[in-house]
């Protein structure tokens, strides 16, 4: 019998995985953890299991891998689309899937990992789907004007409003007006939340960076006007 521990604070995702695995005769979900404490208890209690966990839920990979080794548990990480597999594989995690994984591939991964083999979901397939996966990031990107994207890029790069005004050849008040529009469109409340949103949605970060690069290429010497 293949014992599975599910550790993720997203109940819907846990339920989805459980539904996929429940139809398999030789697979049994022995624990579902929605807190770190519950995950630690499950690792201690259900030795020899395969643990499927979200990277954002248990971010300390090295220590988790050490605990899992002690308990004979094999790990499958559900990674964010922007994460590279090396850091997990180097730490001893055997399986890596993304939230876009389908049922058949999830099962394949779990079976391989339970027998001690490495399984990594194909990054190219994920990359080719990344635009459609990140609906929120893509939607926000498409709603922002080129100038707003430039401002987003400069904000996440740590520029102050006054410096952004110099870069864009406008006034600080105009930058503030643009920023208010950007906040409204994205649904954030300040520049930190804007920066975090942008970092989290790579598709938006890339569009903003490209927009800022275009601006730098076309402006003669923004720093010289300060």
């Amino acid at each position, binding site marked *: 019998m293949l014992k599975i521990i599910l550790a993720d604070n997203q109940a819907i995702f846990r339920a989805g995985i459980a539904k996929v695995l429940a139809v398999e005769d030789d697979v049994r979900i022995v624990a579902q953890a929605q807190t*770190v404490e519950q995950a*630690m208890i499950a690792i201690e209690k259900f030795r020899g299991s395969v643990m499927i966990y979200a*990277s*954002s839920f*248990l*971010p*300390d990979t090295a*220590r*988790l891998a*050490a*605990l899992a080794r002690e308990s004979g548990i094999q790990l499958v990480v559900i990674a*964010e689309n*922007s994460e590279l597999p090396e850091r997990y594989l180097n730490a001893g995690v055997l399986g890596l899937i993304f939230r876009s994984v389908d049922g058949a591939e999830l099962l394949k991964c779990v079976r391989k990992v339970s027998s001690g083999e490495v399984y990594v979901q194909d990054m190219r397939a994920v990359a080719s789907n990344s635009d459609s996966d990140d609906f929120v990031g893509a939607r926000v990107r498409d709603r922002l004007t080129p100038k707003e994207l430039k401002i987003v*890029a400069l904000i*996440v*790069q*740590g*520029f*102050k409003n006054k410096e952004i005004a110099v870069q864009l050849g406008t006034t600080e008040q105009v930058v503030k007006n643009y920023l208010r529009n950007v906040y409204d469109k994205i649904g*954030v*409340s*300040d*520049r*930190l*939340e804007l*920066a*975090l*949103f*942008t*970092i*989290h949605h*790579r598709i938006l*970060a*890339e569009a*903003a*960076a*490209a927009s*800022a*690069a275009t601006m730098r290429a076309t402006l003669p010497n923004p720093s010289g006007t300060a």
Partner: protein
Amino acid sequence: MDDIRTGRRFPVELPLKILGDREVPTGSTANISAAGVYLWIEGGLEVGSSIEFEITIPGESIGSEESVRLHCHGQVVRCDLGPDGRTGVACMIERYEFLRTAEVGGE
């Protein structure tokens, strides 16, 4: 216990260092919102104490050649014992400032 967090939390793992008199090894963020952050660090911090720390946002994640630092002042609101003795620290962010490399001495 009621969840008093406000704002959206982003599961963003970034390196950080604690500033101040005490020597605290570097750690990392587990998630951040505009109002607070959850950190993994070695050792403990006193609940209710003030904290000053700097989070590094790598250039590659923002399409820049240079990293950006987020300099924060806040307060420790909770400490949890994590796996293998590391401490999870929940902090409220009271104020912050973005610092570009050029602004911190070209380090």
